[in-house]
Structures are given as C-alpha cells and as structure tokens.
C-alpha cells in the first residue's frame, strides 16, 4: 500500500510538472548586450541579438551578420521589451547579457528607480556590467566593434575586462552597483563607454566606413544616489580604483630618480608593473576633525627604466620604490581632492568605514556625511615593494657603453 502511494506521488510529480516552460534553443533571441534610453519620456530598449546561424557550418564563407539589433519603446521596461515582440520573431532572452548600457539621459534621471524590472525578472543576470554611454544615447555606442571579436557585445565586455591590464576604467556589475547604492555613506560608480572616431594612428589597415569609430571605456561615471552627476578622467579613475581596492594589474609610471643628478632629464620616466595590491581605508577623528586615511601595500615588478639607474643595487631599488610611492600618493591626493571639490560625494566608501568604527557618532552625522567628506583632510600612505627587476638589471644603454 505504502509502495502504491509512493509510486503515485512520484508519478504525479513527474507528469504534472509538464514541460510548460521548456524552450527550444531555436525559439530564443539570445541577447548579449542591452541598452536603455529615455526618448519622449518613454523607455527605449535596444538589444543586440545573436544570429546563431553565423556560427554554424553552412555560414562559413557567407557574409552573414553575426548580430541583429531590435528596439522597443514603452512606459516601463517590460512594456518596451514586449513591444519588441511585435517586430521581432523571437522572444528576448537576456540571461546571457554581459553588458547593460545606459544612456546618459537615462542615468541622469535616476538609474535604480527605473530598473526595478531587471532585478525582478529571474532571467536577468546580476553579474552583467553596468556601463554609462558618455554624452550619448545607449544605442549610439552599440554596434561599434573595432576589435577582433565578431560580436560587438564581446568587444565591449572584453575592453572592460582589460581593467586587469590598465585600471583606468571602471568595472562595476549590477551587484556591486546596487550594494554601493544601498550602503550608507557611499555613492555608487559605474563604468563608462564612449564613442570616439579613430585618430590617425589607428587608421592603419582601415578598410570599411563602419570601422571609423571605436569605443573606449576610459574613465568612470560618478553617481549621487542613483543619479549620474559627472565623469572622472583616466588618471583619477585609476586612483579611485586604488582606494576601492580594485587594482588587479596595470602599470605605474613615475619620474626616474637618476644616479647623477646633472644627467637628470625631466623626460626620463620609469614604469613598474603591478603584481599585487592591497588597500586599507580608515577614518579617524582627531580634535573633532575627520581624517580620511588610505594605506596601500603594493608589490610590483620593474617594467621599464629610462634613465641612469642600476637596479641591481639595493639602494637604487629603494629610491625607485620611493619615487613610485610618491607618484601614486600625488595622483590619489589629486583625485580625492577633485572628487571632494567637484562632486562632493563619497564614492570611496569612507562613510562605510566611519559607520563601522564610530557607530554612535554616525547616527548624528549620517545626513551631513557628504559635506563632512568634502571638507575632510586626506592622508595617504603608499608602501611600494619592487620584488622583481625584469631580465636585466642595468639600463640597456649602460651595458652598451661598458
């Protein structure tokens, strides 16, 4: 009897579930990047949808476009995306979105308020990167691909991923963006994408008119609450990434501290390659004044030396380390100052540190934190260690002389 009941239950489980939500692959319009804009007070969605045939055997040799672009408009995101179904044969499938691009206008109106649907819908992926189209509509930057990747979405995602080679770009996904938005005493940042015409040097081998433009993710978008307020330049972005502890690689360039001072040329620079970085943020109250602190521990490898410095000598390495630390300190101080003066918003998360350290005081100043932040003193301490010198010790020109 028990057996019969069990069998019945199992059979019910299997057969009553049915295949109501089964979707064959060839019913899906796989979108890899999606853009949001405001037009006529309505949401305009632009999606880049893969044309899967381009990857199949028969398409080899044929000039089949790898992606199709579709647009839909509506009062809400959902309405706009269902608007697409009237013009496009497949249902939008956004689980594989790598990048979500917001037009500048959309971001200025308030981002978080208007993207409720993206996190309510189970299909959307929270690891998609958030990018703001600088000075443009989202659909204007979509579709530009000057890389090797056949699919423009991969091109955008990869240049954001290149933060590990050059931290002058913002790499923020939905989870991080929203986390920073919800934090008390912190304002979110987002990545930036900008359309640029290729300059002279890039025109080598240019063959088609559609390749006249390229994208760059240089810089970072600064938000106040959920509203876009401005952009940082490349060097400031790098400094912000330093304080946010988001440095995963890249290089640091600083003036070479040459051995014989008379030979010193202002144009002599050296570069080190970042191996590992750890940043600690801290806040302190001294004499009722808030002091923001950052301590950076950096491990680097010597990448390039222009100038007369022999790094086989320990003292010279010390000099190089100091020069490198100084360059970083200067850059970061400048960036913090600019944020304090220009935007007056704490995008570094010092408020979070303050909240943790002085929870009682925080309650009093909670609402004035941005003001306190923009007037606070900033102290930076960089400790650089050059742990490798590369394949040669002495600069190349010196070996030749000897």
């Amino acid at each position, binding site marked *: 009897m028990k057996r019969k009941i069990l069998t019945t239950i*199992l059979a019910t*489980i*299997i*057969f009553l*579930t*049915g*295949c109501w*939500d*089964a*979707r*064959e*692959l*060839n019913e*899906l319009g*796989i979108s*890899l990047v999606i853009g949001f804009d405001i037009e006529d007070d309505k949401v305009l969605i632009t999606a880049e949808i*893969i044309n*899967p*045939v*381009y*990857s*199949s*055997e028969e*398409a080899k040799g044929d000039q089949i476009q790898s992606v199709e672009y579709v647009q839909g408009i509506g009062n809400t995101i959902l309405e706009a995306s269902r608007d697409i179904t009237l013009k496009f044969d497949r249902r939008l*499938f956004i*689980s*594989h979105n*790598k990048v979500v691009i917001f037009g500048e206008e959309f971001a200025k109106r308030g981002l978080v308020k208007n993207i409720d649907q993206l996190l309510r819908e189970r*299909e959307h*992926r929270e690891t998609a990167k958030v990018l703001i189209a600088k000075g443009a509509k989202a659909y204007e930057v979509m579709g530009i691909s000057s890389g090797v990747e056949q699919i423009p979405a991969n091109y955008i995602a990869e240049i954001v991923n290149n933060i590990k080679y050059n931290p002058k770009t913002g790499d923020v996904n939905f989870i991080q963006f929203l986390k920073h938005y919800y934090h008390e005493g912190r304002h979110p940042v987002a990545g930036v994408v900008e359309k640029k015409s290729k300059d002279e040097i890039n025109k080598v081998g240019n063959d088609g008119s559609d390749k006249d433009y390229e994208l760059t993710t240089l810089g970072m978008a600064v938000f106040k609450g959920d509203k876009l307020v401005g952009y940082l330049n490349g060097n400031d972005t790098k400094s912000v990434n330093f304080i946010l502890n988001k440095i995963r690689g890249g290089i640091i360039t600083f003036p070479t501290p040459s051995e014989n001072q008379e030979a010193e040329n202002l144009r002599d620079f050296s570069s080190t390659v970042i191996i590992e970085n750890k940043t600690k943020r801290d806040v302190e109250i001294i004499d009722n004044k808030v002091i923001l602190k950052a301590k950076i521990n950096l491990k680097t490898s010597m990448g390039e030396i222009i100038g007369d410095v022999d790094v086989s000598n320990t003292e010279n390495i010390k000099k190089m380390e100091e020069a490198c630390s100084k360059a970083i300190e200067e850059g970061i101080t400048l960036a913090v100052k600019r944020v304090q003066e220009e935007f007056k918003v704490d995008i570094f998360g010092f408020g979070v540190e303050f909240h943790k350290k002085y929870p009682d005081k925080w309650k009093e100043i909670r609402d004035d934190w941005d003001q306190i932040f923009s007037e606070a003193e900033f102290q930076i301490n960089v400790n650089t260690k050059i742990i490798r010198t590369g394949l040669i010790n002495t600069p190349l020109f010196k070996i030749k002389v000897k």
Partner: protein
Amino acid sequence: MVSKDIKVNKEKILTCFHYTSDLTTYEFESNYGIKMLICYIEGFIDRKILNDDILKPLVLGLKDREKIRQLIFSPKIEEEILFENIVDELSHGKLAIFVDGEEKAYLVEISSWEKRSIEQPGAEAVVRGPKEGFIEDIAVNKVLLRRIIRSNNLVFENYKLGQQSKKAVSIAYVKGVVNEDVLEEVRRRLSKINIDAILESGNIEELIEDKPMGLFSTISNAEKPDVVAAKILEGRVAIFTDGTPHVLIVPKLFIEGLQTSEDYYIRPHYASVLRFLRTLSLFISIFLPGIFIALQLYHQEMIPTTLLISAAGAREGVPLPAVLEVFIMIIALELTKESGLRLPKSIGMTVSIVGALILGQAAVQAGIVSGLTVIVVSIAAIAEFTIPDLANALVIARIVIIVLAGFAGIYGITIGFIIMAVHTLSLESFGVAYGWPIAPRDWEGLRKDTFTRAPIWKMVFRPKVLQNYNYRRQVPPRKK
C-alpha cells in the same frame, strides 16, 4: 530392474528412448559363447576406445561372465541394476554393457565429444594477465579453476538441473574462506529450481536472483578462470554450468562493475586512474544526454555563452524537438550496436560504414540532427563501453533520465538520480548489501578498493561484507 535376458533389456531401452535413431544397440557374442549387448548414444563416445579396449577384449577373451572387470581397464566402470539410472547415464555419454544371464549392467565412461579449444574470451580481453577463458565443457572449466587454486580446500558440489535438460551444474567455493551463510543460501535456491530445462547460466541467474525486476543484476558472471578464482578467494561462491563459458558468481557488489581483473595486475597508480575514469563514465553515460537536454530546454542560462551560441547555431534548421532528436540518435546507435553484434563478420564492414554515416557528419548535413547531439550521444555510448558489466543497465537508466529531463529539466534528473540511487543501494545479493562499501559505509573498503586501488600489500583483509569470520588475507611483507 535389469532383466537376465538381453533381448528384454534391449527392448526396454529402446522403448525408454522411444526408438530414437541416435541410440545404438549392438548385440554380439564372445568367442566363448557369452552373449552381450552394448548401448550408447551415437557420437557421444570415443569409437576408438570402444573398438580397441572394450569390444576387442570382450569378444576375444570373455570366458567367465563375472570377470568382465579384468578385461576392461577403466577406473570409471560401475555396476547398475536400476533401469532408470542406466537410461539417465546413457544420455550423459556412458556406455552400457549388458551380459546375458546377469541381472545388472556395466556402465563405462568413455564419453568424448567435440569441444572448442581454450581461447581468449571476447568480452573480457586484457593486455596484462592470463588470456585463457572458459569453454562450454564443465569438466575443462573446473580444471582451469583448479589449476589456479591448487588447494584441497577448493570444493565442487554437483547438481543436475532441469527435468529435460538434466544440466550439470557445479558450485565451487574455498572451504574456510567462503561465507557459509551465502553457501547455504546458494544450495537452498539451487535446490528449489524445478524447471524443464536450463539452457544457459543466465536462466539460473534469473531463477535465483534476489530482485529479478531490479535495474542492475545482482549476480556477476565471468568468462575467465582468474576472475572466478579471485572472487571465490574473497569468500564468494561460483556456479559452473555445463554448456556455457559464463560462470556465475555470488554475491555481487555494485562496485564490481567498476573493477576489472587487470586492475590488480598493473601498477596501482594507473589502476586508480582507470577506476576514476570508469566512475566518471558511469555518470557520463547515465546523465550526459539528460543534462544536455535539460540545459538546452530549461536552463539556457547555465550554458557558457559561446557554447550556447554554437549550440543554437547547430539547432537552426533542425526540424525536431531536442528530446526527439536525442532519441533518434540513441535508437540509431542501439540499432548499429545490435546489428553489428549479430551480423556475420563478412558483412560487418557494411554495418560499420552505414553506422558511421547515420551517426556522423552525414546525419548532421542532412539536417536531421545537430552536430552537438551526435557528440553527446556518442560520448555517452563510449563511456558505456568502458563498463561492460553494467552496460545493459546503463542504456535503460539513460533513457529514463532523458525522459525525465525532457519533462522537468534538472529537477527531473534529480528525481531520477534519487530514485535510482535508492533503488540500487537497497538491493541485496544473497544477504549481502549490494551497495557496500558506499552504503553501508566502510572506509576501509572505500579507501582501498573502490574508486582507487591500493597496492596489494595494503589489502590485508578480505572485503568484510563477504566474510563472517575469516578476514585476514595476508601478513604484509612491509611494515608501515
């Protein structure tokens, strides 16, 4: 009862055999005037021995009807007075000699028939290790086993099974090592068999199995004497059946399907790698096509983007739903397997060419299936062949999983896995837990001889689940 008159006896024998044409009866008289009758089944006996060593001395020298044993030199000569026994023995290849005026018959064992020579079995080929396999003759098979275990403790017990077939069946075990409970159980179940004919050991297997409707067989079979020897030395019981090279061994554990005899002859590291591969292929073979379908139909977000694009590209223009597509490939594969097995070797080539066509590029180009499906189904099939012992069960399990995946995605696969695991681990083989050492858990067994194979000198004990008292196998030559 045997009559004194050979004419009566002849009539009786012929009646018993319903005048069958292959029964030979031959009446003759010795030089001294004693009348005799010999009976045998044509083709069952050695004619040379019959002529030279039986007929000739009897005709030339039988003076006294009592002294027949002095003329025929054979250790296997018996006197029999019961008629039914004589009839019985005739069909086992014995020769019956009736002497006129005696109320008994002499039965001489001179049976001889054509046998296959000892060859390497097709199913259990090895690179390293003995290559001889059992043949159809039970006497030869027993000798093959005794050549490996030359001990007085190796015991055979004979049975005759089937009212018509009277099949010679022997159980073999090593006294002192065998689990007496299992042995008693084997004897009990064999004695309960009451069927008209046993044709192959598979018949016995089904008749004495614990759960005959279970997915996995709980009785293992082997074609190689070294495998049987290794297993009965762990305390198991082997069942030899005349007329088949497949020897049954009980009890069986699930993990035996993942083991081969060669694992114990090659170095333990590589054997462990092979064990790991076989475990992997067990799961691949059952679950891969199911997971493929589930991901494709329900969980597209779990496929890496690049793979999703190429999978979607491959599916463009394929007219069938994904489940049907996989089913078609599986049916094609099973057809190829089956036809390749049964066809005569001379047209086997045709099958492999046709098989390559329907399972390969041609099918993809024709737009019936997508290339990815071909690959997935083929990988599952190749994985299946690494575990020939479980292969039949795997095919069924795979189809069940595919159906469940088609209905309910990963959810369905999980249900299928749970049902299968519960079913498999609840099986018993002759009172021994089939899932040992996984459930019930035995770390010693798990560590030494399940997913890895420990060096021989570390396997100090026999599998504990098979034993009731004699655990220790060796005193290892090395100490830790």
